[in-house]
């Protein structure tokens, strides 16, 4: 497959691995921000091919994992008590809320639908004007343009039965939170390629400067990841801290201006609670007040008591890169993808699920 097979070429992989072994002389700790990168590292068995000096720490970039418990409870409430058609991306529906997941709500008779695009939810709203349709709009900057577009689309169609339950989170504030937390002692970052495809590079330069930390915008295929790691290690070995772009075939410096325009029309920056991590100031997007009728939070005035997380789950420490999934006492025992205690065990981008599904053959 063109544009894919060449980035999975065993010879090229071999070449970058050799290069990495040559370049890395000291131990380095690098965080890949995006869950998609974690997934690919583990799925392709790359972690056990890296030089021993390089420790990859998995970041908080799994949208499903950081969506607050309270919001899942709200989605379940909307589906069960308000009789809405609750539409969601696939891996969100298995994440446990405080009493149950959307999948369990579905089994109990709630109308929960798995969609690939929020525009499909708008179509459902158009076809069933007598029902309220809510799209569970989770994600980082990557899914925001489509979610925002669905609101604009619904407004253009004059729909009064469509709204989104938004839980958008932003990468740069999360990076700073991880650095400031300090415990994970991250020395370099692989920035999330697809997030930068939308947002461009400019928000990252200040972080690189302020914390003097190398950062390489990186793609998702084996060759991308190895090249990104190599570029980071070279900077570290040379004592440099620069913003570089490994994923230049996709990421432009100014991102995707059209997509950003759509986002700006619908969302505004707000404080946001991250599941497992806590409140991070100005780290999310919420629907603008002027579009309140498309904001499920305002439209349905839901108030649900905040529930507390499962005490045994160390998702927060995993998401901040402080602990590896297998350092959790419940990993693979009390907590599996069938009986997840925390969200990182659900999404395939969650570090726990990635380790569970694609455990390194040597580690087991």
């Amino acid at each position, binding site marked *: 497959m063109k544009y894919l097979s060449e980035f999975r070429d065993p010879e090229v992989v071999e070449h970058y691995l050799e290069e990495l072994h040559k370049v890395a002389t000291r131990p380095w700790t690098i965080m890949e921000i995006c869950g998609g990168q974690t997934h690919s590292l583990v799925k392709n068995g790359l972690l056990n091919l890296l030089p021993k000096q390089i420790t990859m720490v998995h970041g908080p970039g799994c949208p499903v994992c950081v969506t607050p418990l309270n919001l899942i409870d709200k989605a379940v409430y909307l589906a069960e008590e308000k009789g809405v058609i609750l539409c969601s991306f696939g891996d969100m529906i*298995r994440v446990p809320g405080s009493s149950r997941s959307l999948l369990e709500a579905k089994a109990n008779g709630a109308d929960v639908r798995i969609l690939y695009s929020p525009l499909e939810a708008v179509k459902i709203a158009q076809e069933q004007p007598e029902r309220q349709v809510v799209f569970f709009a989770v994600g980082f900057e990557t899914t925001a343009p489509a979610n925002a577009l669905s609101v604009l689309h619904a407004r253009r169609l004059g729909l009064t039965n469509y709204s989104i339950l938004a839980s958008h989170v932003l990468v740069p504030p999360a990076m700073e939170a991880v650095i400031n937390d300090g415990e994970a002692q991250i020395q370099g970052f692989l920035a999330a390629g697809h997030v930068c495809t939308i947002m461009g590079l400019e928000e990252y330069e200040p972080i690189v400067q302020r914390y003097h930390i190398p950062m390489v915008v990186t793609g998702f295929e084996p060759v991308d990841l190895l090249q990104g790691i190599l570029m980071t290690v070279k900077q570290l070995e040379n004592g440099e801290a620069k913003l570089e772009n490994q994923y230049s075939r996709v990421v432009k410096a100014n991102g995707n201006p059209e997509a950003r325009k759509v986002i700006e029309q619908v969302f505004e920056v707000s404080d946001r609670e991250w599941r497992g991590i806590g409140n991070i100031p100005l780290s999310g997007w919420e629907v603008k007040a002027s579009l309140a009728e498309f904001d499920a939070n305002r439209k349905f005035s839901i108030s649900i008591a905040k529930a507390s997380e499962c005490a045994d789950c160390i998702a927060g420490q995993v998401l901040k890169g402080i602990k590896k999934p297998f350092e959790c006492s419940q990993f693979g025992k009390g907590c599996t993808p069938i009986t997840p205690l925390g969200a990182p065990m659900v999404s395939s981008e969650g570090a726990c699920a990635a380790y569970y599904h694609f455990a390194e053959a040597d580690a087991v």
Partner: protein
Amino acid sequence: MPKLDFDVITLGHGSGGILTNQLLESGVFDLLKNPLLDEHHDGAMFEWSGRTAFSTDSYVISPIFFPGGNIGELAVNGTVNDLAMCGAVPKYLSLSFILEEGLTMKEFWEILVSIRRAAEKAGVSIVTGDTKVVERGKGDKIFINTSGLGHIHPQAHISTKNVRAGDKIIVSGAIATHGIAIMSVREGLEFETTLTSDSAPLNHTVKALLDEFGTDIHLLKDPTRGGVASVLNEVARDSRLGVNLFQQPIPVLEEVRGACELLGLDPLYVANEGVFMAFVPAGKAEEIVQKLRTLAYGQDAAVIGEVTTEHPKQVVLHSRIGGKRVVNMLVGEQLPRIC
């Protein structure tokens, strides 16, 4: 299609009364005609002896019509293939329908015609059956159950107990095609593709292998729901041996590979309906692959793995780029990823 007084299925068609008889006499019996069925009795009566395989399966696929087939031929091929995986030569099938009120006669007829065609192709007779109708909303247009009987091939001895360390694992054709073809027409997920389901009767191909290689075929499995990964995990668990799976030679159609990339699915977990896996001694593997490639539905056959005493009960994938990872049993349904 016969001329009828009704064009949709109603509750009455499952009542056992006049409407049921009208439905059956309208052409169903004629379509599936054979001496045992022609008795129109409560069950089929026949002589039978020898080693036998007996299997049953229910079909609830949605949508009922999909690129490359419909629920009817799937219901025939599915049970035919289950029998073939036992090393049997399928002979008789039963056929039970649960119809949802409102199913059009045109759809039902089209499914029946496919059933007949599939039965002919597989060389089996439908010798007994049943039809029930449930209220609208209580079913999903049509559910089908088929059960089947077949004599076990005299040279066959198929069992997980026969699997040995060193055995090679052969797959008969490109994997994941059926699941992706179905997904391409699922509501809310339509994407354009020329892919068609791989649904096919595998019994003739399997028989040809057994004729020539007999007990060298240690185990046969068809990776339907749960895909190749689930079958290999079952075998590893039951045999207490490990499986090494090699990513490079696994045949996957380019279009299927692309769709899996887009949808965030792993082809190893996607369903197949016209593919089987054979566990065979290493020394015979190449010969068996060459033979398979001359047979129907076997052109893309390849060795994709081997059985090992290392890592018992575990399936380890050796990725194209030299990495290794454990391939687990599928958990729930494969769910699409967000980004």
